[in-house]
């Protein structure tokens, strides 16, 4: 019995193994072609447009026409310099000359993968702009509207309840009067609701005190919150001169924050990237998925790049981009990014929130002193493998011997002292 099970399992395993091997070695299909295209080519090529390199659509046909098969173009794509050296193909040389002698990076792709890639390129159809917008913008728009405004609903409910109350009160009055009429009593003197209301409170002083206290407390809490909020711009989300999406760059494309904010590990300012950093990619990426060429054109306008001629305009008067500052600490406080990122090993998201999900950046944290201090109270200093903290750590262990502490918060190393931030 047991043996049967074992052999069955073995057989099953073998079959699965063979199947999976077959699957893995099977020629790449068009789906893979898209992934391959996006992963390897987009930095320099577009399908229908010349960028750093030529437009890809139609290239296969041109090569096939000349050489009679796909072999040449496959070799060319895999290692263009090698192909040129081996064959001395004049067409390839001309191509190399035409594109400013820009060397195409050799691609570690199998021939099948190249074929899949070319298949994808050949079958590619340009999306209609309307469809693209609907596909990308539609979902976002509906999801943001569906949340609604809770305060508004509250007011509506209160209004409805008030109307119901008023109607019921009137009905009650009328019924009482009818009853009295029936009993031939004098009808109750006609008083409006407000007067009756006042009358009720004058009779029930205790209720009045409670209600008054409730209102006073509510108003007090409200004004306290309001006053606390002066100068706090949590949630501040201004419109920027360029619709730049961190969601696309940091989230979808997974570009490391430090690539653009490159002084974050060196100095106090994280640094707003200069346009020449944008151009590292946008020399090639001329069109965005969401806003097309409109927003990218703004950086070309700032630096003076001619996307048609693919070169910088000589003597162009460059214009800096006037970003609206979101995180704006007061002048009397000193904050250093490198201290927190390099020494404190904090993630950007700790203070800036889910930045990789923000299309437009907003201020995620309060950025108040209380907020700073709370974090300093709770966060442990990463003292391991840092020669600076060696002796300090030993001294702190000695000091907190009674409590048996081994790790220490920023507060315990003096991180709440005034001159750590104010000078």
């Amino acid at each position, binding site marked *: 019995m047991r043996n049967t099970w074992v052999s069955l399992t073995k057989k099953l395993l073998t079959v699965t193994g063979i199947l999976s091997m077959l699957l893995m070695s099977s020629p790449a299909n068009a789906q893979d072609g898209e992934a391959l295209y996006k992963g390897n080519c987009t930095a320099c090529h577009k399908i229908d447009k010349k960028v750093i390199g030529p437009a890809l659509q139609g290239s296969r046909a041109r090569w096939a026409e000349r050489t009679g098969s796909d072999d040449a173009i496959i070799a060319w794509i895999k290692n263009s310099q090698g192909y040129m050296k081996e064959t001395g193909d004049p067409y390839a040389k001309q191509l190399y000359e035409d594109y400013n002698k820009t060397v195409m990076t050799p691609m570690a792709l199998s021939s099948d993968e190249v074929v899949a890639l070319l298949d994808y390129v050949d079958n590619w159809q340009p999306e209609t702009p309307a469809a693209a917008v609907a596909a990308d913008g539609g979902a976002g728009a509906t999801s943001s509207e569906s949340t609604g405004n809770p305060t508004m609903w509250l007011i509506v409910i209160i209004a409805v309840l008030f109307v119901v109350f008023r109607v019921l009160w009137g009905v009650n009055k009328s019924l009482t009067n009818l009853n009295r009429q029936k009993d031939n009593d004098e009808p109750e003197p006609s008083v409006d609701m407000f007067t009756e209301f006042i009358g009720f409170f004058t009779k029930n002083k205790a209720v009045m005190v409670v209600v008054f206290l409730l209102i006073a407390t509510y108003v007090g809490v409200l004004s306290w919150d309001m006053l606390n909020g002066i100068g706090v*711009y949590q949630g501040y989300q*201004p419109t920027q001169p360029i619709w730049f999406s961190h969601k696309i760059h940091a989230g979808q494309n997974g570009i490391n924050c430090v690539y653009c904010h490159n*002084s974050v590990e*060196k*100095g*106090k*300012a994280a*640094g*707003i*990237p*200069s*346009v*020449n*950093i944008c151009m590292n990619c946008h020399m090639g990426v001329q069109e965005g998925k969401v806003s097309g060429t409109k927003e990218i054109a703004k950086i070309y306008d*700032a*630096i003076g790049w001619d996307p048609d001629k693919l070169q910088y305009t000589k003597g162009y008067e*460059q*214009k*800096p*981009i*006037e*970003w*609206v*500052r979101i995180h*704006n600490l*007061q*002048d*009397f*406080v*000193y904050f*250093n990014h*490198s*201290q927190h990122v*390099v*020494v404190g090993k904090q993630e950007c998201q700790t203070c800036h929130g889910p930045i990789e999900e923000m299309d437009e950046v907003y201020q995620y944290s309060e950025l108040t002193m209380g907020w700073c201090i709370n974090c300093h109270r709770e966060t442990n200093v990463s003292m391991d*493998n*840092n*020669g*600076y*903290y*060696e*002796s*300090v750590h030993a*001294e*702190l262990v000695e*000091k907190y011997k009674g409590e048996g502490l081994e790790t220490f918060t920023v507060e315990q*190393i*003096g991180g709440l*002292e*005034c*001159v*750590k931030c*104010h*000078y």
Partner: protein
Amino acid sequence: MSNNKVYWRGTEELEKAPAFVKGAEKEFSEELPIDQFLANKDLDSTNTSRRDFLKFMGFGITAATLAACETPVVKSLPYVVKPDEVMPGIANYYASTYFDGYDFASVLVKTREGRPIHIEGNKLSKTTKGGVSARVNSSILSLYNKRRFDGPMKEGQSIDWATVDSELKQQIENVKSNGGNIRVLSSTMISPSSQSLLGDFRTWIESVSESVDGEVTAQSTVKHIMYDAVSAAGMLEANKRTHGVEILPGYHFDKAKVVVSFGADFMVNWINPIAFARDFSKTRIPGENMSKHFQFETVMSTTGSNADVRGAIKPSEMGAAIAMLGNAIAGMIGSGDKISASLSSDDNNVEGKIKEAAAKLVAAKGQSIVISDSNDPNVQAIVNGINQMLNNYGSTIDFNNPINLRKGSDAAVVELISEMNNGSVDMLLVMDSDPVYTSPASWGFADALSKVKTVVSFAEKPDATSQNAGYILPVHHYLESWNDANPFANEVTFTQPTINPINNTRQWQDTMMIWMGMSDSYYDLLHKKWNSEVSASDDSTVIFASKWNVAVQDGVSVMAMPKMAIEPVFNSEAVSAAASALSSPSEGWEVAFYVKTGIGIGINADNPWLQELPDPVTKVVWDQYATMNPSDMREQGLNTLMGEQQKAGMVRVTVNGISMELPVVAAPGQKKGTVGVALGYGKGYEGDRLIGENAFVMLSVVKGFVQYSSSASVEKIERRYNIASTQTQHTMMGRKILNETTLPDFNQNDREHWNPAEMISNAYGEKVPVSTLDLWANHDIDLGHRWGLSIDLNTCIGCGSCVTACHSENNVPIVGKDEVNRTRSMSWLRIDRYYSSEADPDIHGDISQEKNYDQMEIPSDYPEVGYMPVMCQHCNHAPCETVCPVAATTHSNEGFNQMTYNRCIGTRYCANNCPYKVRRFNWFNYVGDSKFTDVNPSSDNLARMVLNPDVVVRSRGVMEKCSLCVQRVQAGKLDAKKAGTRVPDGSIQTACASSCPTNAITFGDINDKSSKVRESAMNDRAYHLLEEIGVQPNVWYQTKVRNIENSAEHTA
């Protein structure tokens, strides 16, 4: 007595005129047109009642106010293309060179986001060895001077560069073809490239005229004349006579055991003071090898105030005094001829002091220096003779490594003036100097200038010469320029720009190259020259960088030493000749002209940091004044005390027919019968007020050499003048404030004798040291860092470099004379100056008696002087902290007494409770208040660029004080944390410590067992200021040790 007077409003009322009686009943004498107004029919047609109007107005104001409550939108503008080396928030340092014709320093310029903001010394330089002076580190503010020229001018009208170039080119062509003469006048030029460029200019002009028609019809000439405002021509002449070389030798003060200076203010003014002060401070460590310093001078100079033994002499006695020293030395070593010499009056045992100096010099033969600031070649020749007798040449005085900082010739200027007067100068180019301002009136430079056809001034800002020049071709500030310099021996230093030119200016070198039709710029010229000539840096890791890049990065390099034409050989006959030509002392009042530590020769007299830097000795700011001995002042009935309510008396000083009316400041130590007047004034402004008058015009010329003293008449005038001083009290009231002792006492006795710990009675009546008793719980000061300062009172020379460095680093406001007078100076660091002398029971009574404190204010005529820099002492038990109602000043476990500006509400309790009086209150908004616009650089839009962005600019109503440069400490700690190492000792320096030319201030971590500051704070000389009050400061002072037998030796 009852009052029976009659009061009346006028004769009408007295006489009861009917018209008056009728009118007196009414409130208004004339009928008011109310009825007419109300009868106006249009009134009914308006709808706006008075109440409505008020409602609208109220609503309007409220609405406008509310509408204004909007969060301002802040824009951030990144670079379009960011330069690689600029990283926002990170400072860059560039090595450069400061030379203005008077002061030289190799410097490091700190820039932030492309703006130069601070200057420190370059430690790689052999010339200045990492030191700076107040004048050098303040030069950063002159960059942002709004008085600088913006673009070239012709006859007072703006003109563009192209036009001015073509006009002047045409004029030069005319001069060339007509065989005219071009003269170039500058202060000492130490730039090899500039000099070779001038050589090219000369060849260009002189050669072309020859080639016209192949025959020489008229020969054009070009001459370059160097002229120094404070001349060393006499010294150069003396060296030529005694050694055959017209150069200034190098001086090695670090090798000198005895220094005798006759008037030479070598710590702050004489030739290369930064290096001299730094070298000399190395010999001032108390012990067996401590050097001894004698100074014989007229005005109490900064150097003289630091001398172990100081003799006051009249200026005319200098030759005689030097001759007496020579005689005494000759007598001791049994050689040389005696020179007949005697002093006219000796009221402070100068003769005895000279004899003592002679004995010490002979004992330290070959390890001594004798110098004089005289511009009389005869006097200097005798000084050379003395140094020769003492075998100092080759050891402490070195002709093989000459100093090039003074090359000016008085005779050459005189010759130039006569050329100008006879109309033979067609064009005069003036750069780096202001001869109309700095030349004696008797030369008549301005008159001669008017006879020159074309005068071109390469000035940076308006000066007396540019006012008289037809063309003004403004030049860059040195922080915008390229240049090289050969200040000393074979060292070459570089000047590199640290900012794009702020104004429409151009270096004169570039201008001249454009005239000559050269396509290169001056930078190309420098690059080509030095890339091949400088020897590469010793650092072999630099493989890829060119020699030029390394040289510019270091700021200094080594060049091939120019071969000396003649070997210096001593010629004793020149000394004897000089001895016979020595002029004898004169009688009557004499005036000594001196150069102030802050203002210098007036080049940066419009720099408010320097104007508000208190003079080291008198502590006066923002004014020129005459100094006199207090005894003389009392004789003349002049007021010797100064204060807000006590105006200074004034005198009229007349020299060579030129008079100046000056307020008089009491200067104990000044030779009686003399008046001291500072040069360099009459150039700077406080708002619209021109500060002082030009004293250069009063200089007299003897045998072709400008003399910085002369006979004068001095008379009191009946006017008074308000003078602002930062210190009006001069005594320590018998307390151990500036602790000092003598060298024998220090060497022979233990610390209990000369630096006893302060004792206090404990609960049992036992005397115990103050530090053992404590009312407070201790801060946890042993954990982590504990930052502290140690200040050596022995090497502090009081020069004030730290004060201006602090202003620059910490954005300390400048408040102007009026506010200083109200004791509202904002300086975080002050240098207290104390006079002292042996108490004379006849004058001072028993000083232990409190009732005699008044007498203690009576100064001696010739006292000793001590300096004590005082900043916040960062007390561990700070009295200020306990009285702050809002906890705006608190203690840090790292030893800081923290001041949190944004918390401060300005009660000023802390300042009242501070025993050291180091807290400063912002009485005004110095940034925005128009009262300070002219004196406070940080208030004008351009000069705001000098502010340090890491330090808050404090607002009105806030207390501030020394923070121990906490921003630098935090930055240094962060660097260490990022590198994962301990903070290396010395890697963090406060601004005051790094700017100190004598390294008197040491900063560091007291808890670091190997730190210099700990070693210094734990040594026997260390003590706390006002130790008896038990506040446990983190600032230590090192007892001052004077190299004298007893204090009578100095003062007697």
